[in-house]
């Protein structure tokens, strides 16, 4: 069950990001984007995530998995389609094998909610995009 390895990778990356930011006291939730074709079972992942968080700054954090449907685009006829499961990766319109995926393979940490104490006053992080 590689969901444990995946969960450990998620926890490791969030820990590193928290350490870089400094002053993080608790991570409350982690949002993951999991493509239909990523080969990961969200339920198994949630179970492993809880175990992987134990004893880290993520202890008790909620894992929110957002499933991303697989979509493909045909270069020959410009058709876009939902690939489904099991996926149909030949173009259903022209039958060509010239498709590319638009989505469905992602296994990505989207964002993280965390608490940071006011204790450590830090110089303001450069903010890449404010919205």
């Amino acid at each position: 069950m590689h969901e444990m390895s995946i969960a450990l990778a998620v926890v490791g990356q969030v820990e590193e990001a928290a350490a870089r930011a400094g002053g993080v006291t608790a991570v409350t939730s982690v949002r993951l984007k999991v493509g239909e074709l990523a080969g990961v079972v969200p339920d198994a992942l949630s179970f492993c995530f809880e175990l992987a968080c134990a004893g880290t700054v993520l202890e008790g954090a909620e894992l929110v998995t957002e499933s991303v449907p697989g979509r493909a685009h045909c270069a020959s006829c410009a058709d876009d389609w939902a690939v489904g499961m099991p996926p149909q990766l030949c173009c259903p319109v022209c039958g060509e094998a010239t498709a590319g995926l638009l989505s469905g393979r992602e296994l990505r940490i989207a964002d993280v909610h965390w608490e940071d104490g006011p204790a450590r006053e830090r110089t303001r992080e450069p903010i890449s995009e404010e919205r």
Partner: protein
Amino acid sequence: MCRVVDLQQAVLAKNDATADALRAELAGRGTTVVNLLSSPGSGKTALLERELLLAREGGVPVAALTADLATENDAKRLARSGVPVKQVLTDGLCHLEAGMLARHLEGWLPDGTRLLFVENVGNLVCPASYDLGEALRVVFASVTEGEDKPLKYPTAFGLAHLVVVTKTDIAAAVEFDEAAFRAHVEQVNPGVEVVMTSARRGEGAGALLDRAMAVADGGAVHAPVMGRPQNDHHHHEAASESHPQPHSQPHAHTQAAVRPVESSRLFGAVPGVVAHSRP
């Protein structure tokens, strides 16, 4: 204070970076890695035994590393070919990762190895997600497993550069429908080559070695639809996705530069891996 941090990091970024580094390093040493995937008992070891022997007879320097949960049986079988073989016991882990492979190659992989065959743990789910730095990924299915295997394990078959059907000597007995199997492979991985083999009878002997040598010689490798970089008009969408904003001020954005890895915490955290070199 509560913050939402927009990380946007690929979960397997570390493994992918390690795999890329390993691929480049081995390419520099003239070694091409072939990653062999299948469900347990599909006949990876049996076919590999024959291909290693053919390589040795043909004077091609090859080596093999085989990963199993337990026992050194596969290494013993492969070592009969006379080429360098190493057994990796994963101690419960269901797949190899790039960093594990790199550590096992250190100090073992003989100089001048042209092809390194890696027999992954028998499992069609987990190993599919982990790039090992291979130039050629081969997925095996035996005729006894049913024609719908490619549909049940689309990630494994969808990312294959080559599909090998094994045990064709018993195809008739199990009424293997080759056309249906090929159609299912085509559905998840259009254009990938499917070769028919029997380690028992010798059908397709040398095909695996041949395809691997073609890649080692710089030949083109099939590009699976599933493995092509995802077309990016969605990338920007990531930046415009609205966050759930229950408590989103201040809203800090940390840019997620994923750095190259030497020692990933991941590898430190998995169960210990015991390795045994064989002569």
